[in-house]
């Protein structure tokens, strides 16, 4: 199958007079139509930056992007302003983390969806409004006729996020980008929105890239998982395999640091240390300073991709060696 998204050796640097931040350092992945890829990582691992690079939403002056990004065969990095407008919202659209701030507070949600539809497809106000109503029904917003005329502040967090999803779907995108869309929601609402997203993604056959730091969310929605650390994908594979048998020590650390029925008096195994400073280019494995299994060779060079079995990848020089349990 021809992949919907092909990202090859993507790097993003934020350059200011004082410093250069190496946010993304050579990321390669692809997403097939109808597939959900979950990018997992902690704050500052470059996952949101990768997502924004896909739509060229990064500030053009400060962000230097190299590598290649192809969405549906189009070279995103070579697009002009007109091509970008077509790409954004038409081919690719995005759901943001904070539904409160991602909706304009001074317009009703109906008005905002109508405006988005007319921007892309033109047509009459009435037609766009009818489509907006359909969309609100699609995302299961109760009594949608009335909700169209509600302002964002009149809706609950879950409904706001549904409205946001409706807006993202308004022009029939083939690729949906979701930047931690459930992080700002209550746990019960979180699962509803996840179920909704999964269903819509299946029904509409959209390829989806879902960014999260929550392993539970990832296991719920993903087909494949890519774990990012310090601007690199350190492990990638089908969701069940990665969660059941993680290859990279970082992934294992992440899994160990979640709550999964330990006894109450047992401390959670947090990963020691903190993520590296991305202003400094790491010479070896970026995780080595925090890794309980690090050996001198880890610091010698950036670990190559290793594929121990089909469909799985890890950047750890000890992947092929038998490894003891994470200490």
């Amino acid at each position: 199958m021809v992949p919907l998204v092909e990202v090859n050796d993507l790097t993003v640097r934020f350059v200011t007079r004082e410093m250069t931040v190496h946010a993304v350092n050579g990321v390669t992945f692809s997403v097939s139509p109808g597939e959900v890829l979950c990018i997992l990582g902690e704050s500052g691992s470059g996952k949101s930056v990768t997502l924004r690079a896909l739509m060229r939403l990064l500030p053009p002056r400060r962000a230097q992007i190299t590598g290649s990004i192809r969405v549906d065969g189009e070279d995103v990095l070579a697009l002009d302003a007109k091509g970008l407008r077509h790409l954004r919202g038409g081919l690719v659209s995005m759901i943001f983390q904070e539904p409160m701030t991602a909706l304009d507070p001074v317009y009703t949600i109906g008005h905002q969806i109508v405006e988005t539809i007319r921007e892309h497809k033109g047509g009459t106000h009435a037609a766009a409004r009818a489509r907006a109503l359909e969309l609100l029904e699609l995302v299961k917003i109760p009594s949608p006729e009335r909700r169209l005329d509600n302002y964002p502040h009149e809706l609950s967090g879950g409904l706001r996020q549904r409205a946001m999803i409706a807006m993202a779907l308004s022009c029939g995108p083939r690729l949906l980008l979701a930047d931690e869309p459930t992080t700002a929601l209550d746990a019960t609402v979180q699962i509803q929105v996840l179920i909704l997203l999964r269903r819509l993604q299946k029904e509409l056959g959209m390829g989806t890239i879902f960014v999260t730091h929550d392993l539970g969310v990832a296991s719920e929605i993903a087909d494949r998982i890519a774990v990012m650390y310090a601007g690199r994908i350190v492990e990638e594979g089908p969701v069940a395999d990665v969660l059941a048998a993680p290859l990279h020590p970082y992934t294992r650390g992440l899994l160990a640091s979640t709550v999964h029925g330990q006894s109450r008096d047992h401390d959670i195994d947090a990963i020691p240390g903190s993520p590296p400073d991305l202003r400094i280019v790491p010479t070896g494995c970026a995780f080595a300073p925090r890794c309980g299994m690090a050996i001198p060779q880890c610091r010698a060079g950036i670990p190559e991709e290793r594929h121990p079995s089909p469909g799985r990848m890890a950047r750890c020089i000890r992947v092929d060696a038998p490894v003891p349990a994470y200490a």
Partner: protein
Amino acid sequence: MSPTIITAPPSSHFEEQVAPALMVRGYWGNVLFRLRHDRVTVFFGFILLLIILAAIFAPLIAPFDPYKESVIGRLKPFGWRSHPLGTDELGRDLLTRLIYGGRISLLMGVVPVCIATLVGGTLGVIGGFGGKRVNTVIMRTMDVFYAFPSVLLAVAISGAMGGGIANGMIALSMVFTPAMCRIAETATTQIKNLDFVEAARATGAGTFTILRFHILGNVLGPVFIYASSLVSVGILLASGLSFLGLGVKPPTADWGLMLSTLRQSIYINPEICALPGVAIFITSISFNLVSDGIRAAMDVRM
């Protein structure tokens, strides 16, 4: 104020948890609703309406000719020979002159604010949305005007250009433009970094659409509120200019000018000398309180 609660019908899907919905009244419906329940605003709005109507229909309701002088009837007290508020130092009917003076005062309050809103607002949005260089050029130019106290600047401009209503309006417009520009610029820079602008960009909106729809929609509120509070400042400043002889020329009726000429008679008939000041005070405080009320009513988050 208790919003009407309507519970949506029960739904069959477990994923549809229904929150009670506020009855939809529309944005302006809500604003009106809140305004109606704000007694202070309603009261001063009513006074303001009277003042505005009196100014518009001055020739119809004024009891005398505003320029008709009388040598024997000078500085007479309230109620003297059917002059309800007495006469001024040239024997002209004071009530008539107060009514006519309201025209100039309202004009001088409203027109410069409109001009400043248009010019300053546009410059502010451009400065806020444009790049660093555009912003620097616009805002530093505005800062030059900011360096002078507003009264001094108004005096200097109308002093240089000569008196008269038109020049006074130009002077006041120039005084208000930097403040208006700053408000619009601040609001724009705050809004352009918010998520919904990025979200709009992510749905393919061009720069023009973002400006027209999101920026303008969000900037208009604070700009309008500030503009309404500037009207009373405009009235005060215009009166000040006339008082100093830089605004309206005699014998035109104007509150500031009346205050200035009647000032010499303060020991003869003090209550009459105070009247133009009272008129200025009532108009300006009405504008202030009404604009406060509208600001509170327009805030969607309250």
